[in-house]
Structures are given as structure tokens and as C-alpha cells.
């Protein structure tokens, strides 16, 4: 039987929040990786967790890293300059991700390493760096078949579906359910938003593991509508509708303390149990792995 292992290197949204209240789940921003039993390897997002991943590697060896960026907001790219692999000759880093209407993926990554922001420019990196701009499409990384899906966020953002033999893994970076931004009850727009949300259910359908942005709890959402993030409710409902086996809440709200996170997980596990639902639920924690 084939197996996959997902490891979380950074689980926080928006900004790193190291400190006594985030010791259990971690304070680094978005980064996780997926490894197959055949040695296939993808890294998702390059938040500050990417530095932690870099520390875990034996840097005397050469690597080919396939890095899939969900979108180019800071909490998903600014660990990149601190990833030691990029400074070592003989290494290759393939960066997949979306550009925006205004800038290409390469310009964005280069942009954060301009001399005003960072002392080393991308031209000075010693590893071989390649950029692959994605749209709604599919590509292959070793034995992994990777499918992409456009998500609702203030900047172009893609979710990834990885199929490996009989296993399906899904990573949804920042994502908010579509809704009628005009708030005018126009049936055409309401229907359109509904249809887009149904397409996401299709994309997620049958996943063994889903890792998804669930930054807010429902009580916080009214003030944060339009910020491009989901609530715990949104994502648990998505997982249930798509018949997902295991769900990891991810991209935790920076103000969320460990104790509050524990309470959220306990609350939903109780609800699921009471309703006789078999969805396995976790809150992603830094440096923890899950094999399936």
C-alpha cells in the first residue's frame, strides 16, 4: 500500500507570532511538505516555516525542491530568502505558483529580494532557480499528479490537489467562500457564487487529507468578510460535503492562543461525534507529521 506523509513547518497566517502562547501549535507562517514512500517530494508555500524545513535537511547533499506557492502574500513567500538550499550550488529549486495581473511570479519573488529589502538578490543565488507560472491546470512532479484550482482571495491564489496512486492530498492556501460582494440579492450573482463554491467541493472530493485555511471562528467572520479567509465552520462543512477523511485546520489566526486552539478542536470533535460523523479533525501544529 502506498503512503504519503505531510509535515507542517509553519502553520500560522498573516505574521509570525513566536511566544509563550503559541508554543504548542507554533508561530511560523505557512509551509508544509508532502513526501511519498517512493521519495517524491513537494513543498507547499514559503512562509517563515520554510526556514525550519531548511534546518531539517542534510545540506551536504544536493536537492531538487519543487516549491508550490499558493499566492504571493508575505506569509507565503518571505521564508524563501532564509531557505539555505537556494545558496548552495548544485541544488535546483522549481517554483510553481500564480502571477498576478500586475506582476509575474518571477517578478514577485525577485521583488522581495530587491536590494532595499534584502541584501542578497535572486541573481546572486547559487542554486538553479526555475519559475513555472500556473493557471487552472495540471502538472506532474515525479509520481505526483498535481491539479490546481483558483480560490477566492484578494490576490490570485490557487489550491493544489495531489494524486499519488490511490491517495489524494489537498492543500488550500488562503481561501474564502465566494459570496455576492454586491450584497444586492441579484439571483444571477448569488447563483454564480454558489456554483463556484460547488466547484471547490468537486475539487476537494474524496481527499484522504485536506489541509485548509480556517483562520477565523464564525463569531470573528462578520468583521473580516472579504479578507479572503474561511472560518472553521466553512471548512468543516466543505470537508463533510466533499467526504474528506482527515482535515487539518491551518493558517491559524495570529492572535489565537494554544489554549483557544485546543478548545476549538475539542468543540468540533464533540459535535462530529455527537452527529456520528467520521471526519478526523486536527489543528495543524509545527514540526508534526501525519502519515496516511
Amino acid at each position: 500500500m502506498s503512503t504519503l506523509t505531510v509535515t507542517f513547518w509553519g502553520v500560522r497566517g498573516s505574521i509570525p507570532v513566536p511566544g509563550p502562547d503559541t508554543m504548542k501549535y507554533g508561530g511560523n507562517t505557512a509551509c508544509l511538505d508532502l513526501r511519498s514512500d517512493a521519495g517524491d517530494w513537494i513543498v507547499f508555500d514559503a512562509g517563515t516555516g520554510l526556514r525550519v524545513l531548511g534546518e531539517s535537511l542534510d545540506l551536504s547533499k544536493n536537492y531538487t525542491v519543487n516549491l508550490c506557492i499558493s499566492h504571493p502574500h508575505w506569509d507565503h513567500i518571505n521564508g524563501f530568502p532564509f531557505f539555505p538550499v537556494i545558496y548552495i550550488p548544485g541544488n535546483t529549486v522549481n517554483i510553481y505558483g500564480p502571477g498576478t495581473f500586475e506582476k509575474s511570479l518571477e517578478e514577485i519573488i525577485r521583488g522581495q529580494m530587491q536590494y532595499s529589502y534584502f541584501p542578497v538578490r535572486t541573481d546572486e543565488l547559487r542554486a538553479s532557480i526555475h519559475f513555472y507560472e500556473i493557471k487552472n491546470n495540471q502538472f506532474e512532479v515525479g509520481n505526483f499528479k498535481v491539479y490546481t484550482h483558483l480560490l477566492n482571495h484578494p490576490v490570485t491564489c490557487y489550491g493544489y490537489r495531489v494524486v499519488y496512486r490511490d491517495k489524494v492530498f489537498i492543500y488550500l492556501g488562503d481561501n474564502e467562500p465566494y459570496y455576492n460582494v454586491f450584497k444586492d440579492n441579484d439571483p444571477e450573482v448569488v447563483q454564480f457564487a454558489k456554483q463556484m463554491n460547488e466547484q471547490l467541493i468537486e475539487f476537494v472530493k474524496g481527499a484522504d487529507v485536506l489541509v485548509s485555511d480556517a483562520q477565523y471562528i464564525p463569531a470573528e467572520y462578520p468583521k473580516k468578510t472579504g479578507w479572503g479567509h474561511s472560518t472553521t465552520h466553512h471548512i468543516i462543512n466543505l470537508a463533510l460535503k466533499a467526504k474528506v477523511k482527515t482535515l487539518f485546520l491551518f493558517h491559524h489566526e495570529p492572535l489565537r492562543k494554544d489554549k483557544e486552539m485546543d478548545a476549538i478542536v475539542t468543540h468540533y470533535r464533540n459535535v462530529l461525534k455527537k452527529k456520528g460523523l467520521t471526519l478526523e479533525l486536527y489543528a495543524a501544529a509545527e514540526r508534526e507529521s501525519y502519515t496516511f
Partner: protein
Amino acid sequence: MAQNIVAKVKDSIEKMPPLSPVVHKIIIVANDVTSSAQHLTDVIQLDPVLTAKVIRMVNSAYFGLPQEIKSLKQAVVMLGINTIKNVALSSALMGKIALKKGVLDPEEFWKHSIGVAVASKLIAQRLGIDKKLLEEFFIAGLIHDIGKVLMNNFFPDEMKQIIDISQSKGGFIIDIEKNVLGLTHEEIGIAIGKKWNFENNLLYAVGRHHIPVLKGDSAIYSMVVHVADTFSKVLKVGFSGNYVIDTIDEAIWQSLGISEEIVFEALTPLNDEIQKAKLFLQ
């Protein structure tokens, strides 16, 4: 004879369709960070042709969306207000440099216009100009040859003669135009710009991009578009019927406080930007 042609050109300028007031409104909405989804769609929808163009662009290969977008509101729900603002702005202006198939190759001319637009913005950025004004430099570059659109579309024989002379004998393009047509593409551009109520900054870009003005509030537009135009020709970005490349006077470099090397460096992303824009044509 020359007088007769001049009168005909002036008559053609008069008959040019007016610039839709929607374009001015789009520029205002696009530059206003607080404009709402409703406000944006209200403005775009004032112009049905523009609405259709925005939807066409959203459905172009560039975005590669999984399904067809059928309305402006769907586009805003799917891609967000900021992207649609920029799409609408590009779309509104792109229509103004539409060339009929005639003497000039429409695709090459379009590429030249986009090239000068992107280059003007990149140079303005390098000069440290206020971010809010960068789009105006893009627009200035995009429409700098608007006079040639009229020449090509309404006076193809004279346009061909001008290009033939430029190719075979060389010489300053505006001198050749003056001899053949009695008016230059800069003079025609100014007349169109005035009809469309362009601000002075744009009038200087349209009317003085070959011999730039060095002093006054709008001189910077004239100089930046001149440099962008010249470099686009040196870098062979598209073709606008001009076989002779202007030289940039030392006084312009001094006035701008930059050098040829700095401009080359600032223009590094030029081709990528043009490629991106080209996708909209597909």
C-alpha cells in the same frame, strides 16, 4: 494642394468619435483605493462596449479560468475588485489605439504603443515619481502616437508615401510628414487630445515626444515619453512607421538626472510586460 489636405485632416479630426467620458471615470475609480465593487461596475456599465471588452479579457487565455464568465458582476466576484479595476483601465485605453488594417501593421503598431507605455511607466518609476501618477505615464506612452492612427486610417496614400520616404531617404519623421501632409502626427495628436479634453501632461506627451520640452510642469511627460519612445525603437519593440531613431540630447539626460545605462536597467522587465499584454490579443 497642401492646404487642401490640411483642411481634410482637420475635418477628419473633427469627425473623430469623442473619447468616452467613461474612460475618465474609470481612471478616477481605478486610482481610488476606496471605490466599491458597485461603484466600479456602475462606471464600467455606462459603456456597453467596454463592458463586453472587460468580459472578453477576463475570459482570455491570460486568466485561464475554469469556466466562462458571463457578466461583469461575475467577473468581480471571481477575480476581485482590484484586478477588474486594472483590466477595465487597460481595456478602455486599448480601444483608443485601434488601427485599421492599412499601411501600418496593426499588431506591430500596438506592440510599439504598449512598449512605450510600459517603458514610460518603468522610467517614471525609476525617477521616483509619485506612485499615484505612474498610470498617467503609462497612458501618456500608450497614446503618444494617436496622430498616426488618424493618418493611417484616413490618409493611407499619404501615410505610405511618408513611410517610403523615411525608409529610402531617411530624415526626421515630422519633417517628412510636414512636407507630405502639411501636418505632423504630433500636431494631429494635439488636436485630437484637445478634442478629448486631455490634460496638459498628456498633450505634451502626444505633441512633444520628438523634440521634448525641457521646462515647465508638463515637461517631465514630454521627456519621459521621448526617452521611452527612443528606447522602444532601439530595442525594436514593435514598429510605428519610423525608420530613423531620434538621438537623446545631453540636456534631456541632465534634466532627468539619469543616464542611458540606468534606463536600460529600468527597462529589464519590458519584454515580460509586453508578453503579458499580448495575451489579451488572443
